[in-house]
C-alpha cells in the first residue's frame, strides 16, 4: 500500500494521465495472458528517462516494488504486481528513434510494438527477424525482457541475437548504457545479454539498439499433412537436412488441429492427424530451388500445399490462432513451452501425449519443432477439482520428462508467477545463488519484480 504522501509524489512526477490510482482503471494492468489477477498500488506511464530515473531513486528509498510492463501479452504473469507495488508501463515510450541502413541498426523505445517496427523497417528493405506469434500485439521491451523466440528462430535465432545495446534505469536511479552500435564488441562482460531475458529483474529498459539484416525479398510456405505423428516427425528430420535451413518449421499435433477445426475454417481435411508448416525465404531463385528440395523432403504426405503471397499469409494466420483456439476445447490451460535437443523431439512429444492419455487430459502439442521448442498445453476445467489436480500432476510429469531428455522447462515464455516454483528442478543451488548475487549488484534492496525473479 502506498501512503497518501507517496501517491502525491507519483502524481507530481507523472502528471495528468501518466499516473493511475483508480482500481477501475488499474484493472487493465492487473492481468496479462496468464489470466492471473494481481492489483497494483499504482500504474505510471513515464515519457522520459528523467522521470524514470527519479522514480527508481524514489522506489529504492521507499522500498516500493517495481514491475515493468509492456503490452501484457506474457503468459506467465511476469509483468503483474503480485504483492503490490508500482507497474511501470512503457505505453507512452513508444517511438522508433532511428533506422540506420548503413549501420544496419534500429534504436527504439521499449513500448514500440514488434509488428510496427517490422512494418517501418520493411519500407527500408530492412529486417528484424524475431517474430513471436504475438508480434502484432507485444512490445520490443517485453520481447527483449523475455528473450522472445518466435517462428523464425530456426534460421535466424531469437531476440538475444539481435540486441546490440540498451539503456536501462537501475534501482536508485542510475542510468546504465550497455553495448553500442557495433555488431562486434568483445570489451568487458556482456551486460546487454544479461538484461535480455531478465524479465525486468535488473532494472527498467528505456531504450534498445537492435541489429538488422537485409529483408529477404522472397518467401514461400508449405503446409504438409500426415496420417500420423511419427510420419510428421520423420519429415522434420528430412526437412532439416536439405542443405538449407528453413526459416520456420512448425508442428501441429492431432489435438491442435482439432482445436483449430473447432475455431474456424482450416486449410486441411478434417480429421488430419499431424501437420507441419514450413517457411523458406531468400532470393527468388534460392526460394524456388529450396522449395523444390523441401517438397521432396516432406513427401510422402497426405497433403502438400504451397502458399505464396496472400495464400502464404493465410496459412500462417491459422498458426497464430492456436493459442486462442485451445480455449474452444476446455476453459483453462496450463501452458508449457519446454524445449529439448532436436534429436529428442520424438521421444518428448510421444511422452507428453502418453502423459495426457494416462491422466485422461487433452494435451495440445505444437510449436517450433525446428528448434526443439514444444508447446505442451494441458487443457482442462479448473473448476473441476479432480481435473485440476490431474492437470497439475501432468504438468509436473511433462517437466520431469523434459529434463530427463536434457531439455529446459521454458524455451521462451519464462517463469513469471506461474512457473517460479519449478526453477529449482532445472537450476542447481550454486547457479541460483550466483544469479541472485548478480541481481543484487543491480538491485541491492530487491525492489525489482520481487517473487518473480527468473532464477
Amino acid at each position: 500500500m502506498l501512503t497518501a504522501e507517496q501517491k502525491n509524489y507519483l502524481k507530481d512526477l507523472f502528471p495528468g494521465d501518466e499516473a493511475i490510482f483508480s482500481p477501475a482503471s488499474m484493472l487493465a494492468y492487473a492481468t496479462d495472458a496468464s489470466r492471473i489477477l494481481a492489483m497494483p498500488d499504482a500504474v505510471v506511464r513515464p515519457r522520459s528517462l528523467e522521470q524514470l530515473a527519479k522514480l527508481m531513486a524514489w522506489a529504492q528509498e521507499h522500498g516500493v516494488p517495481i514491475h515493468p510492463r509492456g503490452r501484457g501479452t506474457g503468459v506467465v504473469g511476469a509483468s503483474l504486481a503480485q504483492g503490490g507495488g508500482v507497474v511501470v508501463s512503457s505505453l507512452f515510450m513508444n517511438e522508433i528513434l532511428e533506422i540506420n541502413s548503413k549501420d544496419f541498426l534500429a534504436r527504439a523505445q521499449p513500448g514500440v510494438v514488434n509488428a510496427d517496427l517490422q512494418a517501418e523497417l520493411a519500407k527500408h528493405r530492412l529486417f528484424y527477424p524475431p517474430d513471436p506469434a504475438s508480434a502484432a500485439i507485444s512490445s520490443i521491451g517485453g520481447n527483449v525482457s523475455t528473450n522472445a523466440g518466435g517462428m523464425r528462430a530456426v534460421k535466424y535465432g531469437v531476440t538475444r541475437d539481435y540486441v546490440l545495446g540498451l539503456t536501462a534505469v537501475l534501482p536508485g536511479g542510475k542510468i546504465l548504457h550497455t553495448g553500442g552500435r557495433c555488431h562486434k564488441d568483445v570489451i568487458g562482460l556482456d551486460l546487454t545479454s544479461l538484461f535480455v531475458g531478465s524479465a525486468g529483474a535488473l532494472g527498467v529498459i528505456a531504450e534498445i539498439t537492435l541489429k538488422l539484416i537485409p529483408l529477404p525479398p522472397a518467401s514461400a510456405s508449405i503446409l504438409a499433412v500426415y496420417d500420423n505423428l511419427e510420419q510428421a516427425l520423420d519429415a522434420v528430420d528430412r526437412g532439416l537436412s536439405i542443405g538449407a535451413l528453413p526459416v520456420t518449421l512448425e508442428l501441429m499435433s492431432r489435438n491442435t488441429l482439432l482445436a483449430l477445426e473447432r475455431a474456424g475454417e482450416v486449410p486441411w481435411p478434417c480429421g488430419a492427424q499431424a501437420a507441419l508448416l514450413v517457411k523458406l525465404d531468400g532470393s527468388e531463385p534460392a526460394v524456388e530451388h529450396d522449395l523444390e528440395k523441401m517438397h521432396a523432403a516432406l513427401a510422402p504426405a497426405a497433403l502438400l500445399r504451397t502458399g505464396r503471397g496472400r495464400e502464404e499469409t493465410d496459412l500462417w494466420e491459422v498458426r497464430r490462432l492456436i493459442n486462442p483456439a485451445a480455449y474452444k476445447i476446455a476453459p483453462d490451460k496450463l501452458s508449457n513451452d519446454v524445449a529439448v535437443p532436436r534429436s529428442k523431439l520424438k521421444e518428448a512429444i510421444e511422452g507428453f501425449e502418453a502423459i495426457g492419455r494416462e491422466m485422461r487430459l487433452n494435451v495440445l502439442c505444437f510449436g517450433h519443432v525446428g528448434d526443439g521448442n514444444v508447446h505442451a498445453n494441458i487443457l482442462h476445467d479448473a473448476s473441476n477439482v479432480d481435473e485440476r489436480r490431474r492437470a497439475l500432476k501432468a504438468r509436473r510429469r511433462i517437466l520431469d520428462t523434459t529434463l530427463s531428455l536434457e531439455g529446459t522447462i521454458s524455451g521462451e515464455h519464462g517463469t513469471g508467477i506461474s512457473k517460479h516454483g519449478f526453477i529449482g528442478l532445472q537450476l542447481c543451488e550454486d547457479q541460483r545463488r550466483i544469479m541472485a548475487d548478480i541481481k543484487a549488484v543491480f538491485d541491492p534492496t530487491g525492489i525489482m519484480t520481487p517473487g518473480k525473479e527468473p532464477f
Partner: protein
Amino acid sequence: MSGKPSCIRCGRCLSVCPLFRATGREELAPRSKSMLLEALDRGYGETPQLSAEKLAAMCLGCRRCLDVCPQGVNAPQAVAELRAVHPDFKTWLWKNALRRPQALFPLVGLAPRGMAPKGLDFSGLEPPSEGPWVEIVAASTCFQGRKAVLFPGCAATSLVRRWRTKAENLLAALGVDLLPADFGCCGSPQESGGLLHEAKASRARFAALWRKLGRPLVATICATCRNGLRQTAEELDAEEAQALREAVTPLSAMLMQSQTRLTDAAPERVAFHKPCHETSPADELWLSKSLGDRFFAPDVGECCGFGGALRLAEPDLAAQVGRRCWDSLTATGAQTAVTGCTACVLALSVQAPPTARAFHWLDIFAQSLR
C-alpha cells in the same frame, strides 16, 4: 463450452481499438472493458461500481475489436447493455444531446417530442462549392424495372434532405420501380447509445414495412444503416433473414456498371474514409472506379471517432481519435475525403483541419444525368 464468450486476455484487440491506438491508455482497450464488465458482474476486486461503469462505457461502438477477437467477445454490445441498464442514462443522453447536438447527429431526428435540439449547424455539410466532381454519363441498366425502396436513414430524412433527393434521383436514373416508404431509424445509433428497446422497435418496424411492400430491394446510402439492417436480419427466421440480407444493397453497388466522367472541379487527390461499420466493398469500388487515379485509400483505415454517446461524455477523447483519422487521410496527399456513412461525414467535417473537407460521396456526383 457454452454461455457468453469469455475473454482470454490474449490482447489481440488492443492493436485495433481506435481509442487505445489514439491514446495509448490500456484502460480504454477492449480487453479492459471485458475485465471491467466481468468485475461488475461478479463484483470481484476493489473495483468501485461507478468508476468502473464510467470507464467501461468509453467505447466508440466501431466493432473493430469484434473482428479480431478469437473468442467472439462483443465489447460494444456489452457496453450498450451497460448503458441501457443505467437508470439515468437516457435522461443524461438527451440532456447532453441538446447541449452538443452534433454529437448525436443521426439520433437527433428521433429525440422525444419537444426535445429535438434546435439551431443545429450543418454548414460544414454543404456539397463542394466548386460544383460536382463526377457526372454519370450513362446509368447502369442492371436494375431496370426492379422493385426497390430507399432506406435513407435518419440523417438524410430529417437533417440533410438533399442526400435523400439525390439518392432518389439516382435510383430514378437506374430505372428502378421506386416504392414510397417511410422507414425511420435502422436502430444502430440507438443501440450504441444504449437505447436497446428503441433500437429493437425500429428494426421491427422496418422489417414489418419491408415485408408489407413485398420484400423489395433496399437501396442504402449509409454503412451504419446497413449494419443496423443486417442486425434486423438476425431477428428474423432463417429464410426471411437470407432474403433481407440479399435485398439490402448499397446504392453504389447498383450504380457500379454506370459510365462516369470527371468534371473540371474534381480535385487531384481524394482520400476514401472507410467507415468502421462497412462490410461491403461497394462504396470503395464505386468511388475508385469513378475517381480513377485521383482515388487514394490510406494505408491503415482509422476510425473517425464519431462514437455517438462517447462524443458527449468525452469529447476530447473522441477528438483525439478523429485527429488520428485525419492524419491518415491527409497522409495520402489529399485534402478532401469522401465516405459512405452519414455519421462519419459529420465527424470528419467538424474535425477537419483548416484546409481539409469531407463529403458524403453522394455530394460529389452531379444531381441529374445529362
